[in-house]
């Protein structure tokens, strides 16, 4: 239809997109997993109820939040704790939390709850079963929590500026899914339409966790002062998201799931390409883009970080938004491939943060061109995983040169190029990053540096007398891992991060940011080069509001005075 006239803009080149600095500038979009979940629950009119809420005045007890979909029900089982301050740590190595959670497949019986109460509060040290789909925990943001309880108990609303400064009352840390600690494997539920897109279980768990946390804070105020306590104003209530603190554990996932990575990026790039290819836009679509841009600017203004690298990026992004709004005021957004012209303007004017925010914004006016791509974001990893041993060595060399050109141009004898080592620590079995020169870590190195490994394989490919991959691998089993990756990336252009994941200048937060942006997170706030805090579901309708409010239109702050 729209695309029959004239040019088609192809998806962006993976050599351009798959750089860490760009991936580390991604923002949430219509294709984020939170938004996919809420769109589905709204369109299918899911029902929600709270069959159990048994929390005492000290804040300990349990609660159950059940979501009823068309064919299945899912229950968040929450255990609240009265945690002493000296035990409150958001490190994955903590052993106690303010609240712990599991997503139960169905509606739990009392016996299920008793069993879970023996295990879920222990998290990694406990054990769950195939009836459970996720395992997670959260700690209070103490400062904001105390403020909100005090104000509500006194019959007053919390201070809006204080709410916005933190943005959430509890921060989750790890949200474990697929088979972890005994939970059901993804394969057991991936056939259900609601769990076909990636991470829907985790996103549902976090969505219900937010509802629980808000109920809990109001409950605590009521228990403290039954005569005076009040509930949160609904509009202010929606300004609370749910926090998350994410460390290095998440980064390797992107490298160990190349087909999945490809499908996430590929869906977003396809969406961008479709919109850039549109020969024209209606005045309604143009107005929609302008409105979303203003809301995005408001979001940027509310986004704070103390991390020097993020402060610099946010300064640039603030300038980008001013330039974008000024440009949108005078630009023709309706004729002559308006979105491609806008995009090309952005590439010359905006920082990476601004360019990638523009990419997300361009998807907003076009649900009919974008939202269907959500079904392309899961991956049949088995389909591309087996090595094609019949491939010729010459063909493989050609592929390596095409996919890993950047790595073949890198001087790997430079210490900086291999400064880091990914390893797993004995103590907590968590991924870590160390300094190759300073610590005896090399024997424990994880295969999370495809570029260097591809360069090593390329050298052996040049020297081998073997003519097929099968023959080459018989002599070089050490290349089997990266050879598989090369064959996957040959079929799936965005499967590989085309950058050095062990360089001295590596910022692991770039990898975390990319993944979290696909979840739908916002307010990225790095606390170091390898640890980031975020906000999730801020401004989203609560379960009891789904369908009564403005659907998918929540991911940017609502402008004052505008319908929300």
């Amino acid at each position, binding site marked *: 239809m729209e695309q029959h006239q004239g040019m088609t803009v192809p998806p962006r080149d993976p050599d351009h997109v798959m750089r860490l600095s760009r991936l580390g500038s991604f923002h949430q979009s219509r294709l984020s997993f939170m938004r996919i979940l809420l769109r589905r629950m709204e369109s299918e009119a899911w029902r929600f109820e709270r069959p159990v809420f048994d929390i005492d005045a000290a804040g300990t007890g349990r609660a159950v939040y059940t979501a009823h979909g068309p064919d299945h029900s899912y229950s968040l089982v929450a255990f609240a704790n009265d945690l002493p301050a000296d035990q409150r740590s958001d490190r994955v190595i903590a052993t106690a939390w303010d609240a712990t959670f599991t997503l139960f497949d169905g509606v739990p019986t009392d016996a299920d709850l008793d069993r879970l109460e023996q295990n879920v509060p222990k998290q990694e040290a406990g054990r769950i079963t195939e009836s459970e789909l996720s395992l997670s925990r959260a700690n209070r943001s103490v400062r904001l929590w105390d403020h909100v309880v005090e104000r509500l108990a006194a019959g007053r609303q919390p201070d809006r500026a204080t709410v916005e400064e933190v943005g959430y009352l509890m*921060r989750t840390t790890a949200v474990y899914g697929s088979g972890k600690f005994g939970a059901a*494997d993804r394969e057991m539920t991936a056939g259900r339409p609601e769990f076909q897109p990636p991470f829907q279980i985790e996103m549902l768990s976090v969505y219900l966790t937010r509802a629980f946390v808000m109920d809990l804070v109001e409950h605590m105020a009521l228990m403290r002062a039954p005569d005076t306590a009040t509930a949160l104003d609904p509009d202010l209530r929606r300004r609370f998201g749910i926090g998350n603190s994410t460390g290095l554990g998440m980064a390797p996932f992107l490298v160990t799931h190349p087909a999945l990575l490809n499908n996430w990026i590929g869906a977003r790039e396809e969406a961008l390409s479709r919109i850039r290819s549109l020969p024209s836009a209606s005045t309604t679509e143009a107005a929609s883009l302008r409105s979303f841009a203003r809301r995005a600017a408001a979001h940027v203004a509310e986004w704070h970080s103390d991390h020097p690298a993020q402060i610099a990026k946010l300064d640039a992004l603030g300038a980008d938004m001013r330039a974008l709004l000024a440009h949108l005021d005078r630009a023709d957004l309706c004729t002559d491939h308006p979105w491609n012209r806008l995009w090309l303007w952005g590439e010359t004017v905006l920082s990476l943060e601004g360019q990638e925010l523009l990419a997300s914004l361009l998807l907003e006016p076009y649900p009919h061109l974008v939202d269907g791509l959500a079904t392309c974001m899961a991956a049949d990893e088995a389909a591309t995983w087996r090595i094609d041993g019949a491939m010729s060595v010459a063909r493989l060399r050609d592929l390596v040169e095409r996919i890993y050109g950047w790595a073949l141009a890198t001087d790997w004898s430079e210490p900086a190029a291999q400064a880091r080592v990914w390893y797993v*620590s004995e103590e907590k079995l968590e991924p870590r990053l160390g300094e190759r020169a300073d610590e005896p870590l090399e024997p424990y190195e994880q295969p999370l540096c495809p570029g260097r490994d591809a360069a090593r394989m390329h050298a052996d490919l040049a020297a081998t007398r073997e003519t097929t991959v099968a023959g080459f691998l018989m002599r070089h089993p050490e290349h089997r891992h990266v050879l598989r990756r090369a064959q996957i990336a040959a079929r799936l252009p965005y499967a590989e991060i085309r950058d050095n994941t062990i360089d001295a200048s590596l910022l692991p937060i770039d990898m975390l940011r990319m993944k979290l942006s696909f979840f739908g997170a916002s307010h990225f706030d790095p606390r*170091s080069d390898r640890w980031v805090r975020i906000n999730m579901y801020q401004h989203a309708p609560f379960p009891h509001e789904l369908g009564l409010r403005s659907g998918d239109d929540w991911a940017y702050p609502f402008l004052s005075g505008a319908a929300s």
Partner: protein
Amino acid sequence: MTWSLNEIETLSRKAARGAGLSWGLAEEAGKAARWLAAAGLPGPQVLADLLTRNDGRDYETLCPHEEHEGTWIARGGTLCPLISGAALSDHAERLARGDALTLGRTASPMLLLPYLDAAAHLSGRDITVSWDGVTVTCGPAARPDPGAETALGVAIAECVTIQSATPSDTATPRPAQSRADIPRETAARLDAFARRTYAPETPESRLSGAGAGLTDND
């Protein structure tokens, strides 16, 4: 207590790596143990036995050499099924052409089945494998019969023959299991191998490695 298949795959992959296999081979070993467990066979146990047996042995002594056309043997005397299995899957096209392959003395031949199943899928033909009186047809419809576990579970086969066949629908499809049990002793042995892949913690790395702060009281 049952294990999720992801747990079985992860533990098996780490154990295989800890026992000295390359990362690529270890990944396939993890998938092999998972495949067998899903088929109701004692994949993790057989893997633990094999890794124990081959602990400390060089790749060169365990990998296949084509002694003469169609016969693979190990220089060290006994083929490792994880290495030979991967090579068989790499040679799926050769099997599909109808070439028969004979493997000399092979340890834990049950571990070949997941790789041959993959080769059958890659080549679109069934693959028949036999040793010591047991024959299994690998292909889209086939699942090994756990009733034949004893014959499938031999520690050593003197000779394994592999031949592709026209796909048949006579094999009985067996439902895949979505969970499996692992004997405590097996899990402990696999875990001991897996632990070799973990770096000992130092005070510096404990603080800097994960990069997070120590308190969450804000």
